[in-house]
């Protein structure tokens, strides 16, 4: 079993971190994983995306032609990656930012108003974690406990005060898709 993800958005929306936590959680479950980033020279703004692969087999190519899952945090990401998504694949849309509908009807579309949900929790910056909650609930790629422990590892001691907020955001994302 191999699942490939492309997570994309503006620089600063946290798509790289989302992908790293997904990969870290997969590794903690004993899977083979890769995380590959693609971005321009900008510190903020611009577009950024990463490819994550979680597999029972050793991962050969870290890049994919047709991902199983596309996560679009903004409109340019939707336009760029919707056409590449595998048939019956998952398309996650940040509907707080994307004010249009995807054009394909042979894919599974999951709209997540990630910014609004994050705002309600009290911090817009955790919109990525809301989305991550939705991803794991809908695709069942990794368990919530693995994501929580991956998050704890990533945040480290320095960021431990942020752990509760981030977990809350993940749980809100899970609830949104009814997981």
């Amino acid at each position, binding site marked *: 079993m191999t699942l490939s993800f492309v997570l994309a958005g503006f620089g600063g929306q946290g798509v790289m971190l989302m992908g790293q936590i997904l990969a870290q959680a997969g590794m903690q479950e004993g899977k083979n994983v*890769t995380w*590959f980033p693609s971005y321009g020279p900008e510190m903020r703004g611009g577009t950024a995306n990463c490819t994550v692969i979680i597999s029972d087999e050793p991962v050969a190519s*870290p890049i994919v032609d047709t991902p199983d899952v596309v996560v679009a945090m903004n409109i340019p990401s939707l336009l760029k990656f919707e056409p590449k998504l595998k048939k019956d694949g998952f398309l996650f849309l940040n509907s707080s930012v994307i004010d249009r509908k995807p054009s394909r009807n042979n894919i599974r579309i999951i709209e997540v108003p990630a910014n609004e949900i994050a705002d309600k929790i009290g911090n817009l910056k955790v919109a990525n974690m809301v989305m991550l909650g939705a991803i794991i609930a809908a695709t069942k790629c990794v368990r919530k406990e693995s994501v929580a422990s991956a998050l704890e590892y990533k945040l480290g001691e320095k960021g431990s005060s942020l752990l509760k907020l981030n977990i809350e955001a993940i749980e809100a994302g899970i609830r949104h898709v009814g997981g």
Partner: protein
Amino acid sequence: MKKIMMKGTEAIGEAAIMAGCRNFFGYPITPQNELTEYMARRLPEVGGCFLQAESEVAAVNMIYGAASVGKRAMTSTSSPGFSLMQEGISYIACAQLPAVFVNIVRGGPGLGDIQPSQGDYFQATKGGGHGDYRLIVLAPSTVQEAVTLTELAFELADKYRNPALVLADGLLGQMMEPVEIEEKQVSYDNSSWALTGAKDRPPRKVTSFNIDPYELEKMNLKLQEKYRKMEQEEPRWEEFQTEDADVLLVAYGTVGRICKSVVRMAREAGLKVGLFRPITLYPYPYKPLEELAKHVSLILTVEMSSGQMLEDVKLAALRLTRIEFYGRMAGVVPTPGEIFDHLMHLIGRR
């Protein structure tokens, strides 16, 4: 040993430290800055020396200095920076000193771009600098292999008193994968040549200069003898599903692992396709490739260049079988799908 997620660049840095490297001299350039940054943080923790040089030219000559007193030393850079280091590398090779270089190749020529490329193959394997010398060139295709080959680079550099290069690209440098890095038992003997102070022994000289051509030729012959020994003893490669293969993909580094996916796609389509992945680019594994070439009807060489390793494939297999090439340049990474499509086109399935 616990697995941790690391970027290729960071894993190379940690592997160097575990291999006993305590001296790093470098100058920033994308896409390898994470390695420089990692060494800046880690080396002081282990009592080592990190020094940001004023240029690549300075960095390579600092390596020359550290190596001449018998210290394990390393630098890392990316394509344009590696070009700047060539003069010093030639000096180090002639002076017969061990040193480790890392080139995280980016799109070129010129200032190029900052995306992954394999366009520095000629420079790495056929000289780069002036004169009759060779670099030991190791090409990892996973982050874990980057660790193994960094350790091996130090080992071989010491064994042959010759500079060694870990040749990777921006994709392997930037990607993260789970790795295990263990501390190595490091033992190497440089007591016969290192400049350690001439107390109670005759003075020594480390130099790449000899005004007498007959004497300099003797030095050259010594180098050549080493290179012939390396060519006998050090070629390394991986074969993947080659046992019954009728078509052979040949690719190294990142493209090597991308081609593994192509082999899987081809096998699912019922085609007998295998992969030959050189791990040492110098010395190149000509012999095993020649053997395989005798049993296949087609070799497809795939590179992120205009066809540089292709020349070595031809040296191994010319007239033994049909040899084709597929390449992308300037930082464009070929996908498994496009390589597969090209392969289908070549064998008349499209």
